[in-house]
């Protein structure tokens, strides 16, 4: 699946995550995660894993994802990634 434009979903509010996606001209999946230092240290890898799993599940290949996390649980991350990608198709 190819995304054709930039889009975003979610919010920069407590327990949520703001996901911004855009086509990656260089190819592949590029992920940039922005969160509080302590959260990034403790949960950064898990957040990244959830985002990557959702992207792969949706069959998206060339994508840049920028994520601004405010303490979102896995289910919120999955929902916001899916919404952003569906809006970008």
């Amino acid at each position, binding site marked *: 699946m190819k995304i054709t434009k930039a889009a975003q*979903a*979610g919010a920069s509010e407590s*327990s*949520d995550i703001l996901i911004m996606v855009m086509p990656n001209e260089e190819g592949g999946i590029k992920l940039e995660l922005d969160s509080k230092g302590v959260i990034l240290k403790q949960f950064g890898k898990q957040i990244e894993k959830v985002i990557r799993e959702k992207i792969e599940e949706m069959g998206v290949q060339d994508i840049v994802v920028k994520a601004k996390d405010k303490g979102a*649980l*896995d*289910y919120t991350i999955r*929902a*916001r990634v899916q*919404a952003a990608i569906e809006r970008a198709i």
Partner: protein
Amino acid sequence: MKQYRKSILFVSGNNPKMLQDAPIFGSDGVVFDLEQAVAVEEKDSARLLVKEALRFLDYSGVDVIIRINALDSGYGEQDIELIARERPFAVMIPKASPEQITKIESKLAKIELEEGFPAESIKLIPVIETAYALQYVHKIITSSPRITGVFFNAEGLTADFGMQRTKKGEEIIYARSRIVVACRAEKLNAIDTPFLDSNDYEGLEKDCYRARNMGFTGKAAIDGRQIKIIHDIFD
């Protein structure tokens, strides 16, 4: 009487924190609102969030009710298609009419068959919030065996009539009476409109007594702090 007899707590379907906190206040039911509480441009995102929440969070101690968008809004069908597959306790139908209920019922029957759910396991709760629904309330509540009760939305009804809402609620006495008689005759839950000033506990108490003494089985809440008072009075 079925479950969610005394209280239902409304939360926005697009707010993760509210979805996570919803079960902790002890209400009989929680209503994840995809309609009024969600802006048009966020309908898709809220629908996905509620779907994921139903898969991920533990709502085993509470009846999960999804207020979908009306079918004629262009969002209702997608709400049902995505959410019903997670098997909520019930779907709440805004601007209820017998025609809309028939359409929703056939969609639910198809999904239940495809997913292997027992037939008629997903219940329906029509919202009475239009003059039409009030006039035909008995026809509405007897239009499907899935219907377990009714939610009276006074804000919607008074807007439909162009009336001003007051805390005392004299303007909704007839509507409350008509709904209660229909529900009691069919032994269904009758859930009264929420009291919107969440900091006025005395006002909430008075409004609960009024609704209880008219025959409502319970009351909707818009804030978890309202649940205790509602339960004390509708016990």
